[in-house]
Structure formats: structure tokens, C-alpha cells
């Protein structure tokens, strides 16, 4: 299967290992991966802050670029950015032509873990990692894309890893895009509930499907000098720490 990678601007610039890990995992399960370097952002920051016309322009460009690809699917290591693409039709309610194009792109775009499970039906991608880990449900993946069992299934199939469920795994980390800097005090108060739960879980790593949540959670853990690592699910699935030595 041919896949066009929508890497997201955040991963591209701040967390490139999530991008390379996504490529590695997709290739490992037999996908041919392409990357169109004209891509930038999905438009979510503007859309979520109320700058609809700016968002519309950037979304149009995204649609133009990705409708050129002959790939079978557009795959992204982000629930939030995938959800944004799924929201595109809302931006073009009054433009029937663009609406159709937006719907077509939205249907072809998948978040990485859901693509692996729902489309490729792969529950074990041959990953191995040594340690105890837990999963944080990023809100947009959970509530806009209904990702709940998919990432958990993948994580439970990582050889050598011990999976534990996080208390209130489905509660927000407090990031919320510009919310995190408009109301930093509230954002941090929400975050600290998440941090408490993570520390209680006694894990080596907390895993999520969105680099944004991981920046929020990781930034606080790092400020506290915590030993808990934050990892993107793509990084974990790419990991083959115990290769040649799997159960």
C-alpha cells in the first residue's frame, strides 16, 4: 500500500524523530512511503483561535497539495492534525466545490495508529521496548477520531514492554493550543493532575499520539526533573531495542 506522509509542522520542526519513526513503522508493515515537501501546517492554530479566513487559505493549500498524490492513504502521526483535516468541510460550508474537495481529502486522511489497526489490520508491528509504559489519550484523537482501543492494542503488543493504564487517561493535559499561553495558570493546573497520575503509575515512559500533548506533559516533567520519559507512539512502535531477542 502506498502512503503519503502528512508529518505535521510540529513534528517536522520540533520532533523529527516522530517523522522518521513513522516512516520506519510504515515501511516495516509493508507500505511504500512518500513525502511531499511542499506541505506545511494543517491550519489548526488559526482555526482554533478564530482566524477562519487565514485557516481557510492554509487548508486550501493543504487540499491542493494532497489531492495530487496517487497514494492510497494520507497518514499522520497526530490525532489532532488528522482531526483538523476532518474538520475542513466545516470551513467550506458555503463553497460547494471546495466542500467536495475537502470531504475527499478528509476521507483519505488517517491517524497512524488507526491506520495500522483499522486499515492494515496490524496489531503487532514488531516493536520491542524494555520498560513500563502508559498511554495518555490526546483529546482530539479520542473524541474526534474515536481512538481508544487502537493505540492500546498496539502498545500491548510491544515486546518487552509492560503496559499499565493511566488514571483518568482520557482527561485533558491542559494544552489546548493557544489556550496554553493565553491562560498558562489554568493550563498548568490541569496539567498537574495529569502529572500526578503519571507519577502514580510508576512508569518509565508516558506515550501519546500527539506531539503537542507530549510537549506539554514533557515540559512539566522536565521542569520537575522527573525521570519519566515522554514518547510518541510512532517512536515506541519504531523501537526495536530487543531485536533478535523477542519473546
Amino acid at each position, binding site marked *: 500500500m502506498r502512503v503519503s506522509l502528512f508529518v505535521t509542522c510540529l513534528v517536522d520542526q520540533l520532533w523529527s524523530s516522530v517523522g*522518521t519513526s513513522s516512516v520506519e513503522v510504515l515501511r516495516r508493515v509493508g507500505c511504500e512511503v512518500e513525502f511531499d515537501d511542499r506541505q506545511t501546517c494543517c491550519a489548526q492554530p488559526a482555526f482554533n483561535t478564530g482566524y477562519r479566513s487565514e485557516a481557510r487559505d492554509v487548508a486550501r493549500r493543504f487540499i491542493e497539495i494532497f489531492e495530487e498524490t496517487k497514494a492510497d492513504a494520507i497518514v499522520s502521526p497526530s490525532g489532532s492534525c488528522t482531526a483538523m483535516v476532518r474538520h475542513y468541510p466545516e470551513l467550506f460550508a458555503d463553497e460547494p466545490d471546495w466542500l467536495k474537495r475537502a470531504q475527499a481529502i478528509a476521507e483519505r486522511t488517517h491517524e497512524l495508529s488507526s491506520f495500522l489497526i483499522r486499515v492494515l489490520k496490524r496489531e503487532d508491528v514488531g516493536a520491542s521496548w524494555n520498560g513500563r509504559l502508559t498511554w495518555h489519550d490526546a483529546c482530539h484523537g479520542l473524541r474526534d477520531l474515536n481512538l481508544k482501543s487502537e493505540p492500546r492494542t498496539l502498545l500491548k503488543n510491544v515486546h518487552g514492554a509492560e503496559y499499565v493504564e493511566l488514571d483518568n487517561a482520557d482527561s485533558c493535559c491542559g494544552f*489546548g493550543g493557544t489556550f496554553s499561553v493565553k491562560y498558562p495558570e489554568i493550563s498548568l493546573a490541569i496539567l498537574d493532575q495529569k502529572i500526578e497520575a503519571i507519577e502514580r503509575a510508576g512508569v518509565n515512559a508516558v506515550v501519546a499520539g500527539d506531539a503537542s500533548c507530549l510537549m506539554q506533559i514533557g515540559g*512539566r516533567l522536565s521542569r520537575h526533573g522527573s525521570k519519566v520519559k515522554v514518547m510518541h507512539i510512532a517512536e515506541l512502535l519504531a523501537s526495536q531495542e530487543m531485536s533478535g531477542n523477542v519473546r
Partner: protein
Amino acid sequence: MNHVTSETFDENAKAALADSQLRGALRNATSLFGKRRLAAAQGLTNWEDLRTQARAIKDDVLLHLDQYLENFVSQAEARGAKFHWARDGAEANAIICRLAAERNARSIVKSKSMTTEETHLNVALEAAGIQVIETDLGEYIIQLAEETPSHIIVPAIHKTKRQIAELFTQELGIPPTDDVAKLTSTARATLRDRFAAADIGISGVNFGVAETGTIVILENEGNIRLTTSLPRFHIAVMGIEKVVPRFADLDIFLKLLPRSGTGQRLTTYQSFITGTKQNAFDDGPEELHVVMLDNGRSRMLAHPVTRQSLACIRCGACLNACPVYQQIGGHAYGSVYPGPIGAVITPQLMGLEKTQQLPYASSLCGACREVCPVKIDIPRLLLHLRGEITEKSSPEVQQAKGRTMERFAFKMWRLMMLRPWAYNLSARVGRLFQGLVVKDGKIGRVKSFVGPLAAWTSGRDLRPLDQKSFRDKWASDQGKS
């Protein structure tokens, strides 16, 4: 304390976050109600169907509101109810004050009603020299403390048992006790005398049934039953959106509302009031007056996107589920309706000038939408309001503090995101300059510099830009790490 306004939401929130008693009370109550709601919803196998049906009924009502209101009024009038129409809160209060004056009322008992909170009825009645007593325990506590409710269905959710005990000692002169039963029975004894002496009972309305003209009110304490049956006159204040077509529709709403609000399968009391007493020997009030309140609702109705906010049945589930509400409580919103639904309704009722912070008081996590029994897409409405603020509001709102800068930033962002060369260039420039603040592979607290960076690093380290972007890695080796 809580005479704060929505204009200072940011400051109110900071003050709330510094109040450890408040946060403790909120944490306990919201998580308890959240758990109970979930258990109650899971107790029904057709919960999702009920939500869908409830929303379909509400959508139908909102599309044909005029017709359903006419049916409701004519049915209720045929059974002796009298109707009054109020464009806004001031009109509603004036109608109620006039009704009270015409009946020489000196004392009024009132049951819990967010609609009368919206009109600030108590202030108007007191100004007219009429004594008014709140008879819902939570509302009574709030009235004694001279505060406002901080939750739609749990008005005193922000108060601890100890704070209530101190309040009762101070205001009712009872010996200090933290025995909940003693506190409750003290309130009960005080309130019983008030019921007996009251000239008028004022209530809200949960549902008005168009088919039969019946007013439906749900409660747990029996005070609504007393308020609406003991005094000679009953005045019910009802938002015009509260009508449902058929009596049978209550089957759905009476399953959804208590479960969503308190996690109960049913409230202890459900009062169905259809007109006035028909025979002199019957029990019940001689007169029933229904004040129908618009107060911005018809404006909300006119808009195809925001119309759905009128589907709200005021259960409060979105407040309990909201991570922001859980941290700061209701008073910080500075509005009658707090939490996610408050952040949607308040700007529509009051205009954006003084409420423009509220649509931004959300991480857009969607927990509110998930629990809403009538499936209101609150995040979408918040986004819509954000769009109204940046694009269609008054110059005053458009040029509010920080917004000019923000607009400029998003214009720059647009230019950058439309042109890969500009995007790449900005990232290179960022890499060049981040050396000033990166230490040990992270960006720690940055006090000076641009606002968002300082705001982020006030409590979190920031991950710096990677030395090599994904696209650079891809260009050099096709994405091999």
C-alpha cells in the same frame, strides 16, 4: 467576594486557583458527580439512542417554536394559567414585582431557578420591599452567604462542609457543628416557617408540555412541591425554549436529566402542574402565572449555528466534566451560567464586549460534548464564537488587549504556511536564535522576550527546534533515521 465580572476572567481564574479550599471542594464534587453520571448512563443500554432522540425533539421544537409555544399557552390557559411575556430580565422582574404588589405580597418563597438568576429577580424584589427566601438548600446557603451560585444544579458546590457550618453559626445562631444532618434540619426548620407565611411561591420550569399545558419541575428536597402548592399564588418563570411537544417526550428527558445532572435514575420529586385548581376545595394555589422569558433567546434561535445552544436542559454535566471548570469553579466566569455551556450562552445573551474571554476559556478537549445529554457540540460553538470575535465583532473587541498582535501574528503565520521557502527560512532563523535560550537541550524559564514564550516557560520547559528537521532528513536519506 464573587461580584466579579466576565471581563476580568483571567484575574478571577488566578484568584480561584490560589484558593485551596475551593479547589479541594471542586475536585471532590466534580469527580463524584462525574463518576455517578457515568454509572447512571451505563445503567441504560440505550443511552446513545436517548441522546439522539432528545436532540431530535429539541431540534424540532426550535424549528417550530412559535407553534409549540402557542399550543403550550392555549392548553395551559384553558386550565386557568395566565401568561406574561418578557423580552428581557428587566421586563420579567417588573411583571413579577407588579403581580406581587397587586396581591399585597410581603413574603415570597422561591425554589431554585437559573432563569431567575439570569434576571437577578431577588435584587428586584428586595428593591421593591418584598422579602424573598431561597428554599433550595444550596441556594439558601448561597443567599445567606450573599453570594451567587457557582454551578447550575449544585449552587454551593464551591463550599466545604466546614464553611457551611461556620456560615450557619454566624447567620442562624446555632452552636458550631459539622454534623450534616443537624445543619440540614436547621435549614429545614427555618424554611418551614417561611413556607407557611409566604404569600407567593416562585419557581422555575424544567419542561413545558405543549400537548397538555403542563409545567414539569424536578427536584430532590421537596421544597419545589411546597413552593408551588402551599402559597396562594404561584409564579413560574420559564425560558421560551423549555417547551417539549408531547407528554410522552418526558419519558426521554426524565431519563436523561437526572442521570446527567446528579447521576440519579430519577429525582426524588417530579412535579407536574397543569393549570390552577379547578374546585374551591382542591389543594393548590388559586392563581398560576407563567412568565415567559426571551432575554436573547430569539436572537440565538435566529442563528443556524448557535441555535443548538437552546437545546440545553441545564443538567450541569458539562461543568463537572470540564477540566477548566474543575480547576477554577463557576464564579471565575463572572456570569450566571458558568462552565462550557456558560462560555457559549453568556456571550450570546450579553454580547461579546464584556464576555470575549469566555469562548477562549477552554482547551477544546471535547469532554463537554461527550457528556451532553442533548449532544450540543460545545467545542464547535466555542470555535464559532472565537471566529465571531476575530472577524465580526465591534472594533472595541477586535482591538482588545493582545488581539492586534495576535491578528498580526496569524497574518504572518498564513504567509509562512502558504510558502514552503518562508516556512523553511523561519525555521532556520529560529534555529539560529534559539541558541540564546536553549540550555541542556531545553528552553527553561524565559522571563523577558515575547509573551507566549514567557507564558509557556513559566511552568514548563520548552522543547527546542530539532537541529535537523524531518524534511531535511528526508531530503538527505528519504526518511531513514
